[in-house]
Structures are given as structure tokens and as C-alpha cells.
């Protein structure tokens, strides 16, 4: 498990990037935390820099949209999904488990 930050440092509507083998973006959507691969599958952009709109994030470069729950592309030009990662909140800290698909993500 990789520690991300205290929950207080990631308020709703915000995102942060954590370094792992592949960088991971962690989002707070109205108190629910989601983690996906940080690098857009289209070209080289960080999704943590993107725009959060409900449960999807819009890439800052060419506006591909990804569903944070499933990693699926919900808007072009990206063609392949991003991976999701499980987020664990313990004692006020946010952690990610890289490589473990988020619960509920098909």
C-alpha cells in the first residue's frame, strides 16, 4: 500500500499524483476517493492535472474523458481505458494499492 496523503489534504474536487511504478492519480469526488493511472492513454498528459466533472476526469491536453469508477473512456480521442487502483482510507490517511483493481470496476 502506498500512502497518498491525509484525507484533509485532498478535499472534494481535488486530485493528486503519487509516484509508483506507473504514476497514479487519486481523486476526491464528494468524499469518495478514486485512483486511476495518471498518464492519459492518448498521449503524454497527467490526468491529475485534468478537470474533474462528477465521476469522470477530462484530460488537460485533448479532453479525453475517463470514468473514475471503471477507467473506461467516456469521450475521445483516447482509445484504451486506464487501469483503476483500489483506494483504502485508514485513520484519516489515503492509501492506494497499485495493481489491485478498484472494487466495482469491471
Amino acid at each position: 500500500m502506498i500512502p497518498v496523503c491525509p484525507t484533509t489534504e485532498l478535499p472534494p474536487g481535488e486530485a493528486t499524483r503519487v509516484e509508483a511504478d506507473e504514476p497514479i492519480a487519486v481523486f476526491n469526488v464528494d468524499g469518495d476517493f478514486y485512483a486511476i493511472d495518471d498518464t492519459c492513454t492518448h498521449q503524454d498528459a497527467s490526468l491529475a492535472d485534468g478537470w474533474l466533472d462528477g465521476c469522470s476526469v477530462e484530460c488537460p491536453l485533448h479532453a479525453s474523458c475517463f470514468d473514475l469508477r471503471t477507467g473506461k473512456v467516456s469521450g475521445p480521442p483516447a482509445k484504451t481505458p486506464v487501469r483503476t487502483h483500489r483506494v483504502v482510507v485508514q485513520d484519516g490517511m489515503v492509501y492506494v494499492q497499485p495493481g489491485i483493481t478498484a472494487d466495482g470496476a469491471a
Partner: protein
Amino acid sequence: MSPTVAVVGASLAGLSAARALRDQSFDGRVVVIGDEAHAPYDRPPLSKEFLAGKASLDDVTLGTPDDEELGLEWRLGTTAVGLDRVSRSVLLSDGSEVRADGVVLATGARARRLPGTEGLAGVHVLRSLDDAVALREDLASARRLVVIGAGFIGAEVASTARTLGLEVTVVEAMPVPLAGPLGTEMGAVCAELHADHGTRLLTGTGVAGLVGTGRVEAVELTDGTRLPADVVVVGIGAIPNIEWLADSGVALGNGVLTDARGVTNIPGVVAVGDCAAAWSVSAERHVRIEHWTHALEQPATAVATLLGAEGAVPTSVPYFWSDQYGARIQFAGSRREDDVARVVEGSCADRSFLVVYEREGTPVAVLGMNQPRLFTRWRRQLRSAVPTPS
């Protein structure tokens, strides 16, 4: 017979229009006509990753598996040579025609060439995949590159060529590169990237001609200087592909003239992407936008109108990006000559900044270098601030 829509031009705007037709429940025939032999591909990487050899043909393909379910009829390698406004038929180079109930014009633009350089080996323009493949091959065995024109494409080619180890000189006729889109002050800041990375930039210098027989050997400037060159890239802008419509009755200017929704003067004919000059409510004239995001997004509105919808024109804020020497440049909004540029984050010296252009104190445009997160916020803010044109 089921209704037919003909889409002329099989690139970003044409594919986006075809997708939008299906998305908006059009279940008739969709015939997509394109003069290139290739299936739709993405142009921005052609001066960046693809030219550098870091992206493959597969990487630049625009189509997705989902597109195969759209049931599009492709006519690739086929040039449209005319449009009959009465029967609304698109006439093709092979002598056949496509009769349609609706026509989407999406023929884009082509690179402007330097007159008198045809047939001189080593001289390139960059617009198509074939152009990029030819340039990439030529750069592989070259030592000295001269780029004519320090616009976005010229700057990106220069940047890519530096990573390939070439000696690069960029020649720009204007005193400051990119002053048109970014303003003099910020154009000058972005142009400093060239010197940062060992590219020689000569500004305020015209090109008198190219020297060489059979193959280019040098570029001769108006002041008499000769710049030796193994390869020359001409990046001096693009011309809309509209000549084929000359006798069609479609109103033409610097592009196919349309209203704010993309509708031409001919019923049932719309125009999208780089070939179209749409009426801009704010600028009070026709504006031809040559940006990728515009070609991606605007067809949805034009197609909706073609299918009979009459809603408001969705607000949009022009956006483009450019990648040069590892720096990510992003711009959104509509800038005018006397808008004031103000650095709100970072610094130009650090090559990481956000600049807001203000008109009478109101933000109208934003430019970022290596500031994607902040840029995205500002871009959003501009989008929500744009009044909806009625």
C-alpha cells in the same frame, strides 16, 4: 430509399461529423469520401512524436473499434471534384457521383508552398502522413535543416529535428514569431525556446530563394546570406481546400463561408473543420479556425443543424496546444491586438508560467507554458464566462 449524408474529407472533422450523425440517431447511409488512401489519422503527432520516430502509424490512427459499428461507407483514395447544388450530388474523380440529402464539407487545408520549389529534392512541407514519412526519411541522413517560418509547425519541426541531432536554423519574415496568435510580447517569450535548445532563429528576414539543382543546397536570404541546408521545411501556413467548390454556388471566402452553426448558403450543405470560415458573433466576421479541438467538437453542432435541430449554438472557447522542446504550450480564448497580457503564475524566465490576456480588466484569453493544471482551470472559467449567443 434511406436518406444519405455525404461527408467530403476523411480526417478529424469528417470522422467527427460521421460519428456525430450516428450519435444523433441518423440511421441512413453515411458515405465518407477522402482523397488520401489512408484511413483517418491524427495530424498533430506528424510534427512531434511521429516525426521523432516515437509514434507508429497505429498510434496516430483516429478510428476506434467502436467506429466499425457505425456502418460508414468509405470512399478512400477518391477526390471530390464538384458539387451539384440542385441534385445535391458530390461528383467524384472516378466519374461517379454520390447523391445525398445532406452534405458535410470537411476538406481541410493544405500546406502553402514556396513558389518555384516544386521538383527540388530536399524541400518539404508538412501536412499529410505521406509528407511526414518523406520528411522523416530525409532527416535521417541530413546534418543541416533550415525551417522557413517560425509558426507552430515550423517550431515543432525544428524542435523535433534538434532531438534527432540536426543543426537547425529557423528563418522568420516577421520581427517576432507567433505574434499573430500570442501577441508580440508572448510570441517573443515562446520564441526564446529556440535559443534555449541550440536552434538558431533569424527574424525579420525574408527568403530570396532556394539554391541547388536537383537537390536543395542552401537557402538564400533577402540580405544575401546563404544558409547551407541538406533539408528545407517550408512552414508558412495553410490554404483551405475549397477550389473544387468553385462552380458549386457555395459561398466561398477564406474558406467555405458558414453561419455560426456551420450552415452554408446552400440548404442541406454544412462545412466543418479547417476548410470552414464560420461567422463569429464576437469578432463580427467569418473566422477560419485551424485547431484540432475545433475540428473535433464543432461538427456535432453542424450535423445537428443538418438533421433539423434548432437549439442555441453551444459556447466554445478556441483552444490549441503546441509541444516544443519539451515545453507544453496551451492557449485558449480570443485575443485581440490591444489586450493586456499579465503573468499570474510562474515566470517567463523559468519557462513555466500562466498568462492571462485582459480586455478592460476582463480575462479573454489564457496562455500557459508547462502549467497544464492551472491552465485547465482558466480554460474552464473562460468557457463558463462566454455569453451564449442567441
